């Protein structure tokens, strides 16, 4: 049976070149980068090299890149770090209703200890309004944290404009760029970004490694204390193979960015057009163009999402109902709710995310399968008949 992976936003396979770069660091070049001897220095130099590649991908300098265990840790660190480090200045944080759980649950945690969180609304496409943001900033605001590109619906926020605004108001700006990385131009200096979260496993690197960009002017308290690693900003023996893999993945992402975006955008358009052609009563969620090149989030009304995913799975197709973190419990997505999708449609929405290894033939197979599913299960859907019959 054909196997088609269409969940590149949940995670990506590690590219062969990336794995090849990592391999020596497991069994041969296993030195601890903090060690003074040759093996240690070799590992340390390799880390510096990887750091530079990641810095290059976002227009930062290498000392501004601090490795973490992933995007989640980076989000936790950025937001809690600014919060705890700026208590004397204020207790107000602004974010959006469409953040990843790593951000939302961190904010909820902070709310329990006295921080005030404003969750900005978004429009039908998932876009925040700059006016809303401007209005929300007050003299107690210490941080604005807005997701660069949404993981469920792919909407890309006006980051440069937000950076301009926060800069003018003297408020720190963090963005969760886990999904955006490698999929759209990022330049932290042009965009006035103070803190930016990244994760390796979304750009064909290994899982369990990520990074936080910390603008050199920003003093962020440490979150994980211990040894003197990472310029004394993040303790713990470095995940050397992970760092090397992330570095290689970042290098490839930079080299391939243009072709990657072009290819994914084409595949996305192809898929969406075909679906609209073949199935009635479907809709696309998120912004028509200002979205991640590989993101397709559609509502197949009258067909329950989990049914669809299960059928796809049986046919060898991997897709998801939104964020992977919550897909074990099939609940309506907070993001779809925020863009005003009614519950039954939210429960009929599926996210397909294409990637570097996706082919048109894969998509044809998936489209065909979707048509079968929709026909089959709409027939036995109480709503469909009621409304159509």
């Amino acid at each position, binding site marked *: 049976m054909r196997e088609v992976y269409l969940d590149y936003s949940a995670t990506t396979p590690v590219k062969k070149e990336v794995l090849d770069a990592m391999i020596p660091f497991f069994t041969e070049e296993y030195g601890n980068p903090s060690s003074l001897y040759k093996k240690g220095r070799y590992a340390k130099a390799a880390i510096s090299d990887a750091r530079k590649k990641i810095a290059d991908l976002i227009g930062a300098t290498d000392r501004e890149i601090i490795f973490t265990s992933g995007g989640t840790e980076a989000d936790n660190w950025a937001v809690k770090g600014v919060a705890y480090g700026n208590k004397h200045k204020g207790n107000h944080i602004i974010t959006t209703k469409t953040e990843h759980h790593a951000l939302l649950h961190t904010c909820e945690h902070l709310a329990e200890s006295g921080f005030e969180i404003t969750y900005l609304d978004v429009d039908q496409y998932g876009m925040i309004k700059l006016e809303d943001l401007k209005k929300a900033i007050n003299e107690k605001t210490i941080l604005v944290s807005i997701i660069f590109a949404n993981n469920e619906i792919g909407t890309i926020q006006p980051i440069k404009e937000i950076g301009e605004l926060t800069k003018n108001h003297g408020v720190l700006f963090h963005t969760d760029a886990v999904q955006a990385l490698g999929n759209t131009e990022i330049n932290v200096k042009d965009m006035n970004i103070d803190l930016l979260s990244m994760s390796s496993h979304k750009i064909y690197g290994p899982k369990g490694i990520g990074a936080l960009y910390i603008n050199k002017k920003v003093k962020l308290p440490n979150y994980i204390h211990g040894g003197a690693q990472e310029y004394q900003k993040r303790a713990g023996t470095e995940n050397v193979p992970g760092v090397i893999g992330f570095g290689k993945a970042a290098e490839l992402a930079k080299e391939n960015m243009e072709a990657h975006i072009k290819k994914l955008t084409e595949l996305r358009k192809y898929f969406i057009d075909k679906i609209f052609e073949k199935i009635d009563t479907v809709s696309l969620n998120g912004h028509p163009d200002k979205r991640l090149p590989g993101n397709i989030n559609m509502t197949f009304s009258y067909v*329950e999402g989990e*049914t669809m995913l299960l059928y796809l799975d049986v046919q060898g197709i991997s897709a998801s109902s939104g964020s992977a973190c919550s897909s074990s419990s099939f609940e309506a997505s907070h993001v779809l709710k925020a863009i005003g999708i009614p519950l039954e449609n939210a429960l009929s929405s599926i996210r397909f995310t294409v990637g570097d290894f996706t082919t048109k033939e894969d998509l044809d197979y998936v489209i065909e399968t979707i048509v079968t599913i929709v026909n089959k299960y709409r027939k036995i*859907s*109480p709503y469909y008949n009621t409304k159509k019959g």
Partner: protein
Amino acid sequence: MFNDKVIEHFMNPHNAGDMDNPDAEGTIGSPVCGDIMQIFLKIEDNIIKDAKFKTFGCGSAIASSSVATDMIKGKTIEEALKVTNKDVIDELGGLPSQKIHCSVLSEQAIKTAIYNYAKKHNLEFEGLKGFDPNFDPHEHHDE
């Protein structure tokens, strides 16, 4: 996660779809809780001659209904009322614990159809004692 029998019933459900002029109909669930289950019955001489279902619900709900409708066909109403979600699960060869409530859904939909039938015809069935058509399976399942 699911065994082959569940998958088979999910992909090729028995008794799925509409029924012309059913003698009994029962609907349980609502869009708000994410699942809706509808059962249609043909009843003749106290015997369930035919059963059909429609659902907007997950795969386990579909498989459960497929099996449950199979199980009650040809049975008397009293016999049908004795079919529990446990029987449905056994017949399916097991369901993951977080999917138990789906089997409850189909049991309840059948009971609701019979309840409506009893009401319409002013009948009483032993097996409906204590049955509450507004029962919400989501509040009771244990995970």
